[in-house]
């Protein structure tokens, strides 16, 4: 299995290297879908130039990266292309190993449930076999490496790739069962972009499941483990934040990074929903709607945790998707991360209702983004509404894709426990509805 992965990595690195040397590199790094004010490479260079001039990079409103990025690129600025190619490769390898382990867990659990006779009798075709699961890790790694979104993100040198790597390592550590590493990588991911805070819940649920601790609110073991994990997470977060303080000897980075993510002052267009909404907002309601939109990201965690407590990795996938759609400055790099998980759920294909339309919507929208941007900004023959419309359509497409997968997942679970060929009392084929 390692050989195809290495081949895939080589192909991916070649594609990126070719694009770096071509004239497309400049064009791609200017694209607002790929580079947002939070993770554009131009701003990283600007921050380092300000540091050279003796001005704090956080004194202006151009640089919004964490001090970790300053540390990293202060020494590696000459090899930036290599750094981004390596981060992509590391992400793919981490996802590959994580999914490999996860498959083993899934198969073991399936075997256990079959022996306990939890499954209905006629669900043989829904049972997953090692044969079909064999190529999933490779598919996940290739889905990430060869996704055009990832390639563009890498060529644009957007630091979203570094965020993705940290999250991938967090997933790997969680699936391997290491509480400490999982907490550390989660703290690092939260420190980088704040929203991975919501991934605490699925990681906790997975680790509890792995330790065979039942999720009961009255259970002492549950609370002990939760406090342990939470304490590890918070302590690592505090340590990382304090280390960042010592870089520039000031707390300026906190309003500049986290204040910026939460209060959304920069209205540069991107593929998200925030920019046009707050460009057209009445000043009076601005604070209210900022709070509403930010709560919207964190709000789905508890209900999803209640519903999906037996399936924490699916919960993680849905949570990652919600973060990518509703974060304040999304880019296609974020979309690429959750899309890499789609091969994991390829067994749900028969239950997906709208997959064809949704993939068409997503592909067409991705192609129309640069066209309508050009018409608005350069040709002047369209206005901002055109680009906004495509943003809306793209987000609706993403939302429906995720809810479609969620629906398919729940439906398969129902069939597994109740049988595949359902009949009504009078013998005719039954319809399944959500009530």
């Amino acid at each position, binding site marked *: 299995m390692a050989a195809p992965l290495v081949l895939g990595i080589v192909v991916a690195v070649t594609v990126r290297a070719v694009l770096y040397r071509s004239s497309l590199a400049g064009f791609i790094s200017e694209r607002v879908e790929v580079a947002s004010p939070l993770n554009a490479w131009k701003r990283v260079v600007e921050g380092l130039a300000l540091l050279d001039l003796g001005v704090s990079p956080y004194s202006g*409103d151009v640089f919004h990266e964490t001090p970790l990025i300053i540390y990293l690129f202060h020494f590696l600025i000459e090899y930036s292309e290599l750094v981004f190619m390596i981060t992509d490769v590391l992400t793919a390898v981490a996802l590959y190993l994580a999914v490999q382990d996860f498959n083993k867990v899934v198969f073991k659990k399936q075997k256990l449930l079959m022996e306990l006779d939890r499954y209905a009798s006629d669900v043989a075709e829904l049972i997953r076999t090692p044969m079909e699961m064999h190529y999933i890790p490779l598919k996940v790694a290739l889905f990430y490496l060869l996704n055009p979104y990832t390639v563009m993100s890498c060529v644009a040198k957007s630091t979203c790739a570094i965020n993705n790597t940290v999250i991938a390592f967090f997933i790997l550590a969680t699936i391997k069962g290491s509480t400490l590493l999982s907490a550390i990588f989660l703290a690092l991911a939260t420190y980088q972009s704040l929203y991975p805070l919501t991934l605490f819940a699925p990681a906790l649920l997975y680790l509890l499941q792995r330790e065979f601790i039942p999720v009961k609110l009255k259970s002492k073991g549950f609370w002990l483990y939760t406090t342990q994990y939470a304490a590890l997470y918070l302590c690592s977060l505090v340590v990382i934040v304090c280390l960042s303080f010592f870089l520039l000897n000031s707390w300026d980075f906190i309003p500049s990074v986290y204040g910026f993510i939460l209060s959304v002052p920069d209205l540069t267009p991107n593929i998200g929903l925030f920019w046009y909404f707050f460009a057209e907002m009445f000043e009076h309601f601005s604070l209210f709607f900022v709070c509403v939109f930010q709560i919207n990201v964190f709000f789905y965690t508890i209900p999803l945790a209640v519903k999906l407590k037996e399936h924490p990795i699916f919960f993680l996938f849905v949570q990652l998707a919600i973060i990518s759609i509703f974060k304040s400055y999304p880019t296609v790099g974020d979309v690429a991360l959750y899309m890499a998980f789609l091969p994991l759920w390829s067994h749900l294909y028969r239950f997906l209702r709208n997959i064809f339309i949704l993939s068409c919507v997503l592909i067409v929208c991705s192609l129309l983004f640069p066209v309508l941007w050009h018409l608005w900004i350069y040709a002047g023959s369209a206005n901002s509404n055109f680009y906004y419309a495509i943003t809306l359509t793209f987000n609706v497409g993403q939302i429906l894709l995720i809810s479609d997968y969620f629906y398919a997942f729940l439906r398969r679970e129902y069939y597994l426990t109740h049988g595949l060929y359902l009949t009504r009392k009078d013998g005719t084929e039954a319809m399944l509805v959500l009530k």
Partner: protein
Amino acid sequence: MAGAVAAVLGLLLLLGSAGGSTGPPRDSLREELLLSPLPSGDLAATFQFRARWDSELHREGVSHYRLFPKALGQLISKFLVRELHLSLTQGFWRTRTWGQPYLQAPAGAELWVWFQDSVTDVDKAWKELSNILSGIFCASLNFIDSTNTVTPTASFKPLGLANVTDHHLLRYAVLPREVVCTENLTPWKKLLPCGSKAGLAVLLKAERLFHTSYHSQAVHIRPICRDASCQSVSWELRQTLTVVFDTFSIGQGKRDWSLFKMFSRTVTEACPLASESKIYVDISSKTQENELLEVTPLPLSMHEASVQGDRRTYAVYDLLSPSLFNVSRSLNVQLKWKRPQDSLDLSTPVLHAQRYVSGYGLQTGEISTLIYNTHPYRAFPVILLETVPWYLRLYVHTLVITTKGKENKPSYIHYQPAQDRRRPHLLEMLIQLPANSVTKITIQFERALLKWTEYTPDPNHGFYVSPSVLSALVPSVIAMKAEDAEQSPLFTSLFPSSDGSSYFVRLYTEPLLVNLPTPDFSMPYNVICLTCTVVAVCYGSFYNLLTRTFHVEEPSRGGLAKRLANIIRKVRGVPPL
């Protein structure tokens, strides 16, 4: 006893007389008009009214104002102002064709103030001061706020006496969009002691003054030495007004001009309150080639001065001398060119600059400044001050300075990045200009999308970028001797001269007009509805999936509608639902 009383009375008298001998502080007014033909054929007229008041405004409680206007005097004492410079300008001084200006001002309104070091909250004082000035001069200076105010570190050093130069006491703001009109001229004229009734100010009629290519009126207040020993401080108020007439339009194709043709008025008398009232006409061209031009009436005296590195001759008309109005009641200075001027002596000024925006589209752009040093063998440094509004995000790592194809590193660079909606970019650099060279400074920027309420009602007009300021000590070709400020004409004592080998020049470049991407202003309700719909789609789908479970559908008995439909079907003879 009586002797003691007499002694006390005598002492009181002595003290009284001693106190009485100081009297109210002395003030004096000088007015002058300088008419200088420009190399391109236009004519520049510079009025200067200078009131000097020997009083320590900050220490004594002053209540009696004579020549110094009360509005400005109270302003200085209330806000502890050290220096104040306000200018309102319409048009742009074309340095390349008109030569070096005596005192240039940027297009729009410019205000820079040095405060005393005893001021605790400079920003508060600045805000109140700009609001009060806005009321005094009927100009929209109340738009000066933190988004267009900067604190330069190297430019705008005090022009008057200064013993402390902590640059945190300096504030500088430009409003490039400000328009100058009669409404601004009237209060400016009201500050003059004689108003517009006597003296040179009778020439200031708005209908002629605003038919010009360049109109700039300014107020400069600064402390100066009272005498050569500089023991005490006097306050000087200079009101300057510079206009450039297009002689081809007023002279009907000929370059001749006269006071009546330009101002539609003539001077009849000097201001009675003025201690000096003179008109200077620059006739330097006359001495170069004999009998090139003729000035009428014949001037009573000539004055030679070396101004801005050039030897110039001026014809002087002293309005206070009794012999001037002997022949006629009014003075109408006229100049006739004897020969048609086919070869104009276009001496290019030593330092001039231009600035432009390049790039296409509404996403990015580039500001380029070109600075020309035409001195044949001397290099000199220049301080460039650029203030760029926050919505044009400058990227200082793209700053490139090239001279003659090679990179030119500035020896001092001070960059303060902008904060969104709080303060603008400030870039100050000290650049060495080699002799006979062109220096190009380019910096890239990104255009921001603003909130819809932050656009002006005409957003497609564009957004102004204030002119950049170049300050330099230009080496002069000839040696200039330092003259006593009181004896020399006002136009030579504008800037303090440190030595005779260079003169101070402050140039402004053009303001720039930049377009920003605009949202659709008719759409706030639609946008809120549509975006909330998308969020609701997610919320709705997830709510359904989270709260509902799968059930096998039970065939329902059918509601009323189904039964009605079945009845109709039975009537039609079709199988029921």
